[in-house]
């Protein structure tokens, strides 16, 4: 770097003033260039988001123009007659994610409580890392594992029991009817639950750590039990953060692709039974995009992508806003 030479040499020797002026202006030019570069890179992030929206809208224009609003309300998905409606994938996406969150959230909160309140100090880090590794396992691994290990196990041991258990209960019998395929909406939801578990756990653990110890100590000092402290101090204090974490997990679940594609069965229909095969937005795109012939077909798939991006954008934005609120509270 030229600067070192100039700093040490300047005071001792007579320096050529023009050379020094040149060097200094070179330095300030470098300074400006670097600052501009970082600014450009930062704006690149904004531009990326804008470009994603613009390219998806332009790509889906044909489909939205052809089908109009009925694209969102029709269930039929027929490549032969080129008639496409997004209702079945939208329904599948929402149902799988909802079931996944119902299962994952209580377990995540349980693990987070365990990690922050109950776990012996020496085990805290290893167990925390092990749970985080679940988040590191690639989606496709959950897919192949779900298809060859989890789905057959479910088919053999769990689904027949569920069908038998709920058959006599009116209302619930439809939810668990049909033959046990193994793959299907429920299987996809369970795999999703395993995948979002580490994300929700990580957020819950972090927000539980923001609870001032003095609050908990005061509550314990009053003779409260662990359950009462968690229920009446920790969770109310961090409610916004927990909701933020849940929304973050939901954003993940909605957009999850490969694992779901393997185990959901890819059937474009809406069934009352959660044991039946279905499809989601992302699974439909992953399965059909490279084989889509015709502009309307391709455009309809891109329109699905646009819907997915819009939904996840809103969910993730809400999640961030909530997490920002609890960060402010922790900082204040």
């Amino acid at each position: 770097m030229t600067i070192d030479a100039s700093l040490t040499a300047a005071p001792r020797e007579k320096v050529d003033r023009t050379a020094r002026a040149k060097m200094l202006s070179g330095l300030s030019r470098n300074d400006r260039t670097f600052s501009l570069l970082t600014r450009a890179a930062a704006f690149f992030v904004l531009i990326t988001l804008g470009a994603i929206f613009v390219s998806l809208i332009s790509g889906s224009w044909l489909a939205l123009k052809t089908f109009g609003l009925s694209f969102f309300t029709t269930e039929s998905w027929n490549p032969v007659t080129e008639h496409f409606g997004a209702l079945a994938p939208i329904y599948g996406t929402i149902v799988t994610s909802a079931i996944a969150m119902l299962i994952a959230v209580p377990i995540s909160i349980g693990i987070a409580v365990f990690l922050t309140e109950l776990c012996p100090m020496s085990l805290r880090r290893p167990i925390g890392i092990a749970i985080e590794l679940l988040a590191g396992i690639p989606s496709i691994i959950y897919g192949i594992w779900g298809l060859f290990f989890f789905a057959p196990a479910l088919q053999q041991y769990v689904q027949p029991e569920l069908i038998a258990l709920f058959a006599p209960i009116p209302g619930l019998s439809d939810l668990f009817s049909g033959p046990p395929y193994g793959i299907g909406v429920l299987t996809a939801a369970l795999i999703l639950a395993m995948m979002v578990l580490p994300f929700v756990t990580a957020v819950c653990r972090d927000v539980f750590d923001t609870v001032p110890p003095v609050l908990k100590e005061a509550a314990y000092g009053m003779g409260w039990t662990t359950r009462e402290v968690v229920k009446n101090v920790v969770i109310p204090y961090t409610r916004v953060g927990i909701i933020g974490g849940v929304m973050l997990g939901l954003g993940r679940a909605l957009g999850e692709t490969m694992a779901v594609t393997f185990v959901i069965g890819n059937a474009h229909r809406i069934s009352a039974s959660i044991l039946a095969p279905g499809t989601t937005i992302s699974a439909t795109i992953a399965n059909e995009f490279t084989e889509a012939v015709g502009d309307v077909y391709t455009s309809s798939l891109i329109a699905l992508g646009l819907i997915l991006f819009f939904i996840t954008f809103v969910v993730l934005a809400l999640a961030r806003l909530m997490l920002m609120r609890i960060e402010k509270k922790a900082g204040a």
Partner: protein
Amino acid sequence: MALDLAKYRRRRLRSTITICLCWAASALGLTILAVILATLVFKGFSGLNLKVFTEMTPPPGSDGGLLNAIAGSLVMTIIGVAVGTPIGILAGTYLAEYGRHSKVSSVIRFINDILLSAPSIVTGLFVYEILVATMGHFSAIAGAAALAVLVIPTVVRTTENMLLLVPNQLREASSALGLPQSIVIRKIIYKAARAGMITGVLLAIARVSGETAPLLFTSLNNQFWSTDLNAPMASLPVVIFQYALSPYEDWQRLAWTGALLITAAVLTLSIAARYLGTSRTSK
């Protein structure tokens, strides 16, 4: 006042039940991890031999390996990371150093956090629209571009976090020596935050090397050895996807071996990243 012992016992009991449920939840989480890893090793290890690393992906019914898929994954990951990392580091630098308190930065931060967890299949569609559709064919470049788009938000986030950890006195002391801000950042702040920034890059590599969805319709797949960046290229995740869903048993076996390889690589990277991260904070 008499102590209501019955009530107290009930409260204790409910608390104990909650505690047990929390233990059970954690055990369940660990069990899932253990079962997945055990299945991978059990199913994938038997297929692991030298051929996997020296032969191309086979047609159904014959012997082969995963060489072209491994090479393709490496090439696209390297290009994607090489393109995405500098942009991510520069953007993170802007957020932490130049525009730390500006309005624009908080918007960028917000958008970046959304992009961080946005569905990767949408990234694939986006790159398809701007690169594949305009060039008229699938290519390794498009695949690498999709990975780069995924690398950027991860690197931005960790870079910013790590730069914010550098104490302000360091900045003030360097500025007091008369150093221009860009040199303070590049020669001093970056050095202080180096371990954390490397962690970020490692995590980004771990994240993209298992990504399948964005590659499905950007780099597609290729049965043969190819180094042409302008042509479709095989990648490990896409080959796993294709082979696992095929009816051929030898393809499925290769898919399991590939799955084992990729999981081993990704988990090694994330453990290395974590180790690097903690060895710095404990100092």
